[in-house]
């Protein structure tokens, strides 16, 4: 289904607005993206929406790349599918550019300005209180992020190996200076060999 220039503009604006709404990360606005892309516009199927998130989570790089995959998929669909040739590929790249610039630009400008302001006013007690006051919160949140990642497995009899791997990786990072790449690679190899 081809998209009009108005549609492309809407796509960009939707992500640009979500950029400023996603406190705690872009992934927190995923339900809103789902409503727009899948329910309202029918540009993506439910299945391809989920696979964008799953693929970005499992590939290297920041998680926000799930947005790029959504843009890619919208563009490819608009061009008639992957096999439709160069037009579809260019539309895919257009989708990637619009969604990624949309999700990153507004929040980046805001963050950059705020950081410069805080740098100039770093001696204000308010600025120092903000940075020191938020520190324990974000540390707690970090641990909970890791916790939620591993609590996604629930069945003890089957998943104890995954928890063990999580615990070992955590211990090795704390106690040794081993390069993290080795740990990730070891997890991948064990998993690929069907041991987990």
């Amino acid at each position, binding site marked *: 289904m081809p998209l009009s220039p108005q549609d492309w503009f809407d796509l960009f604006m939707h992500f640009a607005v979500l950029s400023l709404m996603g*406190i705690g990360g872009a992934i927190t606005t995923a339900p809103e993206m789902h409503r727009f892309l899948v329910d309202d516009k029918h540009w993506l199927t439910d299945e391809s929406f989920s696979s964008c998130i799953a693929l970005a989570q499992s590939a290297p790089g920041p998680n926000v790349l799930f947005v790029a995959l959504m843009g890619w998929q919208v563009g490819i669909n608009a061009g008639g599918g992957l096999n439709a040739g160069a037009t579809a590929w260019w539309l895919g790249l257009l989708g990637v550019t619009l969604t990624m610039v949309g999700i990153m630009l507004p929040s980046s400008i805001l963050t950059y300005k705020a950081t410069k302001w805080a740098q100039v006013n770093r001696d204000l*007690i308010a600025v120092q209180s903000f940075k020191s006051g938020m520190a*324990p*919160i*974000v*540390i707690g949140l970090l641990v909970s*992020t890791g916790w939620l990642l591993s609590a996604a497995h629930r069945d003890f009899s089957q998943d104890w190996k995954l928890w063990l791997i999580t615990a*070992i990786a955590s211990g090795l990072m704390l106690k040794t200076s081993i390069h993290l790449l080795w740990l990730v690679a070891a*997890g*991948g190899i064990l998993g690929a060999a069907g041991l987990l």
Partner: protein
Amino acid sequence: MSSEAQALNHPRSKTELFVVFTFLALQGVGGVLAVVQHELVERRKWMTKAQFVEEWSVAQVMPGPNVVNLCLMIGGKYFGIAGALAAVCGLIGGPLVLVLGLAILFGGLADNPSAQGALKGMGAVSAGLVIATGLKLSTTLPKNPMGLWAALTFAVLSFAGVGIFRLPLAWVLLGLGSVACFLTYRALRHVPPKAESKSDREAP
């Protein structure tokens, strides 16, 4: 500048920023934050743990993708807007090409059991790395102006709020965060200025 600050390194050029962020982004499966902390604080020594927590607090509270915020703040600190761009392009560029390549090749993720297994294994490891990063950074809590016990309480509450009770992240961040900032403000107001916490500012 204290001795601690003088021992820090810094990136020599925008190219170095770009290359460093490209490499660390490509190492981060299931999230990049653990790698950013490990690489910038422990291996390259561009910043102290306490500085990292401060930057991460701001990056987390600002809207938008957190790790992008963090990298643009770090790049911007050294080389202004051009540095911010270099860091973010490094962070996004390589992984973007890779992830689009995967999407084209597999049209999603292959149903291949060993690929699925590998992803499970890497996911379990990266969960461990994120937990370890949080625990490592918690060694900065004793220096918190609120005092160790208050800081620890806030850390545990925010862990429980999101990890156990599954509250939305933004609520915990803004709700607990504003109480913590207020208490810190009260604590700092009664301390004579310049007593501490100046050591972690970098040279221009």
